[in-house]
């Protein structure tokens, strides 16, 4: 219990601190790196809650793909963030006002939030306790059986997305040199080598 609590405070402190550094650091590349740190710590928090599948997805998708993409964009576009921030103080009062309104609304909502007991009794299948089945196993049990249709249909949707991206953007440029293995293999001595009689002492 105390170990878990210690880890919870460690992960959450690092997470909040790195989230703050994302907006506070002067160098955009550092911002993205802090964002990755925040994601990893959030994944740690998920593991502490027993949601190991979400934790893995967070690391694989957000850290592995999205954050790296951000990093590429930030490094390639060379945006001058110092310049972008110049008008910051000008908009601060409006931004602060909106923020305060949101905070008040959030407090009101959370303060009065009650789940109707009539709604709670509806789950169709009982949720097995975490000690019997992990999240990942539970998802695996239904993904390829109960939800096979949706899984396959999503596959078709992704196929259409891929075909669409290729149809709309791929262009075959005429001047590009491509490797054609069949042509390379089909080369014979006759097609590749030209033997010339060079007159003696005259050069080519």
């Amino acid at each position, binding site marked *: 219990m105390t170990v878990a609590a210690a880890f919870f405070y460690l992960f959450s402190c690092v997470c909040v601190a790195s989230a703050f550094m994302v907006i506070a650091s002067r160098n955009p590349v550092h911002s993205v790196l802090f964002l990755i740190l925040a994601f990893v710590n959030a994944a740690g928090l998920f593991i502490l809650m027993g949601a190991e599948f979400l934790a893995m997805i967070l690391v694989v998708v957000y850290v592995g793909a999205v954050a790296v993409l951000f990093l590429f964009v930030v490094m390639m576009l060379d945006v001058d963030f110092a310049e972008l921030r110049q008008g910051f103080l000008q908009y601060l009062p409006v931004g602060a006002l909106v923020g305060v309104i949101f905070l008040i609304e959030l407090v009101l909502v959370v303060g009065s939030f009650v789940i109707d007991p009539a*709604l709670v009794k*509806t*789950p*169709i299948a009982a949720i097995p306790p975490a000690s019997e089945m992990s999240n990942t196993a539970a998802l695996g049990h239904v993904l390829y059986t*109960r939800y*096979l*249709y*949706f899984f*396959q*249909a*999503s596959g*078709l*949707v992704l*196929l*259409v*997305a891929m*075909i*669409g991206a*290729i*149809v*709309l953007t791929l262009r075959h440029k005429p001047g590009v040199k491509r490797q054609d293995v069949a042509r390379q293999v089909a080369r014979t001595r006759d097609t590749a080598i030209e033997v010339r009689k060079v007159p003696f002492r005259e050069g080519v």
Partner: protein
Amino acid sequence: MAAVPMFALAPALPEIVLAASALLLVLIGALRGERAAGLIEALTFVALLVAGFLVVTQGGERLETFGGSFVVDAFARFAKVMTLVGSAAALLMSGDFLRRAGINRFEYPILILLATVGMMMMISAGDLIALYLGLELQSLALYVVAAIDRDNARSSEAGLKYFVLGALSSGMLLYGASLIYGFTGTVSFAGIAQALQGEGHAGAIFGLVFIAAGLAFKISAVPFHMWTPDVYEGAPTPVAAFFAAAPKMAAMALLVRVFITAFPGIVDQWRQIIVFVAIASMALGSFAAIGQRNIKRLMAYSSIGHMGYALVGLAAGTAEGVQSVLVYMAIYLVMTLGTFAFILSMRREEGPVEGIDDLAGLARTQPYAAYGLTILFFSLAGIPPLAGFLAKWYVFAAAVEAKLYTLAVIGVLASVIGAYYYIRVVKIMHFDDPAGAAFTPMSAGQKVVFALASIVILILMLPGAPAPLNGAALAAARSLF
């Protein structure tokens, strides 16, 4: 059920065949490149015919698979046959146009095929997740084909506009679906219907409004119609012909299925939405089309109006109402395919033309085409003995039986006003002096679709001829109640 052991996924066999042939055709296209475009077009057509055959031979009973997410009943079969007819006809008449425009990419028929799979999944959807996945599969393929002429700015604009607005409507639909799930605790249509018995379901009605908005976008009904004229005009004509037929049929079938099977307990609440959408669509379809000079834009407004008339039948909320919606959509499909087969053939030596003025004097230069088109336009207008009149008669009769007198009267008035612009086109064809040289001859595919559509509209005039269509539609409608 007899004791014949049945392959568990058999109800979805047509969809499985279509999806597998799409995968195979992608492979052929990837290996053989653009040379395979003609072959792939032919094979896609064959695959659609095979799927149609499989749908027809499935028998009459209600089948379910994938745990109730996929439902095949008489309603689904009727709508699927119509959708397949729409896709196959659009494919048959578009090849020639695409070849001349230099955009006969091999991906085009494959995307049409995948969109058709999506439409059939929509029609058979038994819960909200299946609904959304089918809709997204169809819409994504449609976004891409709208922009398939990628070097043309207008086509790209059409694709982009359709994509952005379509994504917005999908968002609304999902928001509504999440509310419905939250308030009823289930995504299956049968479960939702069970949860919504009795009084007081404010939260679910809130979700229903968003679902109605998302689906109204897909059938281009009025508050969500803005994309239609621009997309029809900007997209290549074969794509507009496809958009006007099969996706409308599938989305209308989905709308009917969701409202009738998932929300039978709150008919009075959703009837208000449908009545409003129907009146607004009929009015806009009648008035906004009057000033159009481009025949594709005219057809866009015409399709908006026709969706309004079809929704009049749904507003009745009865089996007869649903029957009239199905008959209306079937006749609309035939009329619009025939008209677009002609629009696709509007081409002079210098290239395709789209102006209504270009039709001037058609009766003198191409009398057969002019008479065929006259039949189709009179039918679209709903002039009495023709099929379009029958379709309107059924929906208004269903509305009157459900005591929606105001709606029926407004519908009749709107169709009288709408008749003006259809008859104006007929007048230009028959009484104006020829504007230029005759159009180049129609391709074989366009001739087949145009002639068949005109003949079907004429045959439906004979006494007793609409009976099989009515019977099939009635059996389909009964299977929902």
